[in-house]
């Protein structure tokens, strides 16, 4: 043990202890603090340079500025009766403000969360291990990748890293919100630790893997704050569409002026519509609804992912989740409960059941997995074999690996192994043992019933099989069915043999399975699917999952996993719940649907606005156009004003929808489209009619026109 130089006591304050239960507290939609922040921001965002990024809102702002100038000019030159122009100007500014507010709302929620996180980022002191074996105290912010540090009970882990020595329990509630401590140890898949978490017991040596400012926590803060937010490809494409529509409407309105000149000349009466009215028409036509809400939808989508305790490294990853064609689901822990239970011992001919139980128990003593423990328990129940204190023996434990697919113990010169049937047969062959066809037969019989055969061998001697039973999670069958309805194939990945896999697959209802899968198989499967044009999502936690996680289009890494896995994936699930992949897919879809629905709604709205404004514009030139005034609006002024007000208010009215997202149900594309077209397409055409009509009457009632 290196000598420890006493470091100053790490700073603990109340805030670090009273961390929120969850990283992202589900806040009410209109939290008062967030509202205050958003309202302030909506005015800051009036800066034309900021608005210029959004072509639709830029056009509105330019329009608002123009009417303001005209109004000022009128007032200065003493023109009377500017009430109409004043109200239009006011509402045009409101339109911009409302759009800013929507974006600010979405951002403010992220910022509020980032603030909470930042509070946990106290600059603790780290105990850095020097080359000479001494330990020096340095501020955590000066640690570089590759540094070794020591953390004892009560220490805050100063940065992201890998445990290289020792084992400890760690409180990771800062990150996961889960108060139960987790075990972190060197080697294996539980070696990653995160900066900001706290060691509760024992002492570990950690190799730091990130530089200051690049830690997981830093990235997380940046992500929730939206600082790193880049527009996703789909968002850019939609922006192009909206900008294109804006241009079309600009053409339609700008050319309307000369057309009106012709009309006035040839009708010999009336006047050409004023600039204020033309600007009003333009603002009503351009897709302000989606233009104002587009960025809010994107930010809110990320936010929703976060509320499921999943960290998406980019918006692109969330979008890709919506596009996924194939889900690779690990059988264990995702489809099944993960704790297969040993239910019987099936010895080969000439072998006593008790011997099989004895060897199986010995081989499982160091096996901390639920399966291993269940074997120990079963042997105890059946044959009163007690768990022996293995340290008394000259024992060497062989851990399970994905390549050998077996584990066991070397004890007193005996090589006891348990594992996949084929692996054991190979092992027996290596040991020049006897081949037992019977073993395969039993193993297949178990597999066919959905059980897992676990072959047991004592050196070259095949003993028999332990029957492990897998338990499929409740409701799994239904969820897989939902996936299928969404058009997503689910593929079960398992190390089991094909027969076992087939039985579980049929019980869970997955579309396909990949049996006896090594990480390499997984990677190849992904490549093959991608070559066929499919998008793949998968979960993973081990270092050997990293290549597949990186290759997959959506790689959801478990927070309990190694840092290699977390680096490779583009999302991290803080709860380490692999089933969550399904929710992430739904959120991705919801994000895209919300964009499409509001775009459709925005465009469909224009129909009614034409019926309000066009007859009003030409009331003096062509009174015959009054036939188009199907809403029977009071006067030309009230018609134009009502349309502008409706156009502004609809943005605010739709903020909650943009933030919450359109309701998503896992059904096929056709019925989804039918439903959304009905609500947002047809609804979008119809809704403004009563809306504008009511505003018109309100204006008349208030004597505003």
């Amino acid at each position, binding site marked *: 043990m290196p000598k420890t130089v006493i470091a100053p006591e790490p700073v603990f304050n109340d805030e670090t202890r009273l961390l929120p239960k969850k990283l992202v507290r589900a806040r009410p939609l209109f939290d008062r603090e967030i509202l205050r922040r958003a309202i302030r921001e909506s005015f800051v965002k009036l800066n034309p340079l900021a608005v210029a990024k959004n072509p639709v809102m830029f056009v509105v702002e330019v329009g608002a500025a123009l009417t303001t100038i005209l109004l000022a000019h009128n007032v200065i030159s003493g023109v009377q009766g500017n009430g109409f122009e004043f109200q239009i100007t006011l509402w045009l500014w409101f339109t911009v403000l409302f759009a800013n507010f929507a974006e600010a709302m979405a951002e403010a929620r992220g910022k509020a969360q980032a603030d909470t996180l930042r509070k946990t980022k106290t600059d603790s002191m780290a105990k850095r291990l020097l080359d000479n074996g001494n330990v020096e105290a340095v501020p955590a912010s000066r640690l570089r990748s590759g540094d070794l540090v020591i953390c004892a009970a009560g220490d805050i882990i100063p940065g992201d890293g890998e445990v290289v020595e020792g084992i400890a329990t760690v409180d990771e509630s800062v990150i996961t919100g889960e108060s139960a401590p987790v075990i972190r140890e060197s080697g294996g898949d539980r070696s990653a630790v995160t900066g900001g978490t706290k060691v509760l017991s024992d002492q570990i040596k950690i190799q730091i893997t990130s530089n200051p400012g690049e830690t997981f926590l830093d990235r997380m803060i940046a992500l929730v704050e939206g600082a790193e937010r880049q527009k996703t490809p789909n968002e850019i494409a939609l922006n192009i*569409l909206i900008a294109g529509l804006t241009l079309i409407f600009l*053409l339609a309105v700008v050319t309307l002026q000369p*057309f009106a000149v012709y009309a006035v000349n040839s009708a010999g009466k009336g006047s050409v519509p004023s600039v204020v009215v033309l600007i009003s028409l333009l603002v009503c036509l351009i897709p302000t609804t989606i233009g104002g809400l587009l960025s809010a939808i994107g930010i809110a989508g990320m936010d929703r992912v976060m509320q499921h305790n999943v960290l998406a490294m980019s918006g692109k990853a969330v979008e890709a989740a919506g596009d996924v064609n194939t889900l690779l689901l690990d059988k264990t822990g995702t489809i099944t409960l993960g704790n297969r239970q040993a239910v019987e011992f099936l010895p080969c001919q000439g072998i006593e059941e008790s011997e099989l139980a004895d060897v199986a128990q010995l081989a499982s003593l160091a096996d901390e997995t639920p399966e291993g423990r269940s074997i120990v328990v079963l042997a105890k129940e059946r044959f009163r074999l007690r768990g022996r204190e293995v340290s008394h023996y000259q024992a060497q434990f062989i851990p399970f690996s994905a390549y050998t697919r077996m584990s066991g113990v070397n004890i007193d010169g005996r090589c006891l192994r348990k594992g996949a049937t084929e692996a054991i047969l190979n092992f027996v062959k290596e040991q020049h043992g006897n081949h037992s066809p019977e073993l395969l037969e039993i193993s297949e019989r178990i597999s066919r019933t959905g059980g897992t055969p676990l072959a047991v061998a004592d050196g070259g001697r095949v003993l028999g099989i332990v029957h492990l039973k897998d338990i499929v999670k409740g409701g799994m069958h239904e969820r897989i069915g939902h996936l299928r309805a*969404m058009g997503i194939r689910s593929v079960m990945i398992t190390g089991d043999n094909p027969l076992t896999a087939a039985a579980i697959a049929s019980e869970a209802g997955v579309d396909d399975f990949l049996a006896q899968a090594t990480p390499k198989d997984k990677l190849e499967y992904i490549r093959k699917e991608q070559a066929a044009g499919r998008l793949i999502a998968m979960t993973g936690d081990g270092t050997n999952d990293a290549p597949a996680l990186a290759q997959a289009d959506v790689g959801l890494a478990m927070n309990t996993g190694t840092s290699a896995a977390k680096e490779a994936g583009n999302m991290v699930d803080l709860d380490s719940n692999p089933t969550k992949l399904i929710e992430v897919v739904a959120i991705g879809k919801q994000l895209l649907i919300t964009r499409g629905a509001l775009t459709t709604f925005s465009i469909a709205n224009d*129909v009614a606005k034409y019926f309000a404004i*066009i007859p009003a514009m030409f009331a003096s030139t062509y009174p015959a156009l009054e036939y188009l005034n199907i809403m029977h609006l009071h006067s030309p002024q009230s018609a134009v004003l009502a349309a502008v007000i409706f156009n502004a208010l609809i943005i605010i009215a739709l903020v909650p929808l943009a933030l919450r997202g359109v309701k998503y149900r896992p059904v*096929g594309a*056709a019925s989804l*489209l039918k439903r959304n077209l009905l609500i947002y397409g047809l609804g979008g055409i119809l809704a403004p009619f009563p809306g504008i009509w009511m505003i018109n009457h309100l204006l008349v009632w208030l004597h505003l026109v």
Partner: protein
Amino acid sequence: MTPSGVLYIVVFFLVLLAVTKPLGLFMAHVYEGKRTFLHPLLRPLERLIYRLCGIREDSEQRWTQYAASLLAFSLVSFLFVYAIQRLQGFLPFNPMGFSTGHPPGNATPMTPDLAFNTAVSFMTNTNWQAYGGETTLSYFVQMLALTVQNFVSAAAGIAVAIALIRGFARKQMDTLGNFWVDLTRGTLYVMLPLCFVFAIFLCARGVPQTLEPYVKAKTLEGPTQTIAVGPVASQEAPKMLGTNGGGFFNANSAHPFENPTPLTNFMEILAILAISSGLTYTFGKMVGDTRQGWGLFAAMAVLFFAGVFVCYGSERAGNPILAHLGIETAAARGQPGGNMEGKEVRFGIASSALWATATTDASNGSVNSMHDSYTPLGGLIPMFNLQTDEVIFGGTGSGLYGILLYAVVGVFIAGLMVGRTPEYLGKKIEQKEVKMAMVAIIVTAFAILVFSALCSVAKFPAHGYWNPPGPATANLANDGPHGFSEILYAFSSASENNGSAFAGINVNTPWYNLLLGLAMLIGRFGFMLPALAIAGSLATKKKVPVTSGTLPTYGALWVGLLVATIVIVGALTFFPALSLGPIVEQFLMHQGKTFSMLIFPVWS
């Protein structure tokens, strides 16, 4: 609407439906280079053409090369047509002695601006005619310049559509085929055989085909009537089949020599839409899923029926102002009734309305009745067909690539609503596709609206060079909203490469010739180049497999969506303009309001 009129329209549609599959299948084979029944006859000729022109049949082009070939060919075609027109006075087959100046009788001189306009017009498959054929052009120009363009501009349109189809059909490839080969095959295997048979048929039913000069007849009452004849049948066939529409005569297919009988009339309307309709099947066949082709066909059919019945209904109802004067406007007692101004007795109301709709559904632009004299609502249909970019069957090739661009926009908006990155036929619709589709829609809207706006207010000195009548509105034959409709229709027609007109407007002035020529160029290449860019981008993409999560692009839902996209985009863009033209005129007509020519007040 009369039962026989409705029957006419329904029978027409059924016949169109019947020819779609065989014609489409044949074209798929031609463009995929498969052997057809015409190969023994035409294959040696095809090879000869490649050898003469230095075309390598097996070399493939990227979209940029494909586009460059298209542009080069169009440029040379333009120069060729321009030169022949200007030189017609020195060339043979000119019995009436037409030239560039000092023309005989009532002939029109072939001025540089008119030659430019006409050359652009035929090269772009527009066939807008600022001139009257029988008073301006020699037989040499009609045959060696215009008929040739009737063939190749149509074949070029189909080539672009085929390239776009390949973009959808191919996986991770850079190339789209070879423009020269596609152009040659389209001319040789599709246009030429069909035109040959159709020309002979037309001549048998009364369409002249002669190189003799105009005939002088002494009429029953005494005066002499000069009857214009010429090689009409051979030009009429490609004019109809290649959605060209440029008539031999000024009156186009209303002229009894272009369209002598009800049967020729039926066949000519069929010829307008046949190839374009067939291409929907070609599309389905080549992308490997004929349902996709029928999906497009169904959307087109819905729009077709909607248009034709609104137009027919309105023409059938007639002009209430005339009805007031004591004219029988109901069909009864051995007379057609309805709005007969500008219509021929042998065609009647139904087939005139059908033609007006079909010719603007496609980018044909031929007429068998005068759209300018339609009721406002009846005239709104052709105009709106133009403004929605002629995607209802559409021009040869241009209809298909036009509706595919709308499909891209529709898929993009609606595709999002199923929660996936939008895809069409397994191809992801992303930035580049959306951008290019929007460019195509915007540039045509630009040409229509901005140029119409210019002409609504532009002023020129009377008897000047640019527009001798004076202000641009002095060229109109009608005042009030209808005059505005003439301008709007002219630029809609030119920008969409249609060629039909509210023909009262006098457009043979340098100002209009140049501006309309520009509109045609914008409309042709502003649509073709984005279509090719999309094709190039799509061809390089993977094909996403179809699942139940994929937006189905066939079936009633898709058809409804596509129809709604086309109508809503068109309506939102043009509603303000239309409301000052046909829409307000319709209301005014019912109020009995009329407009007489007034001298326009000075533009203030």
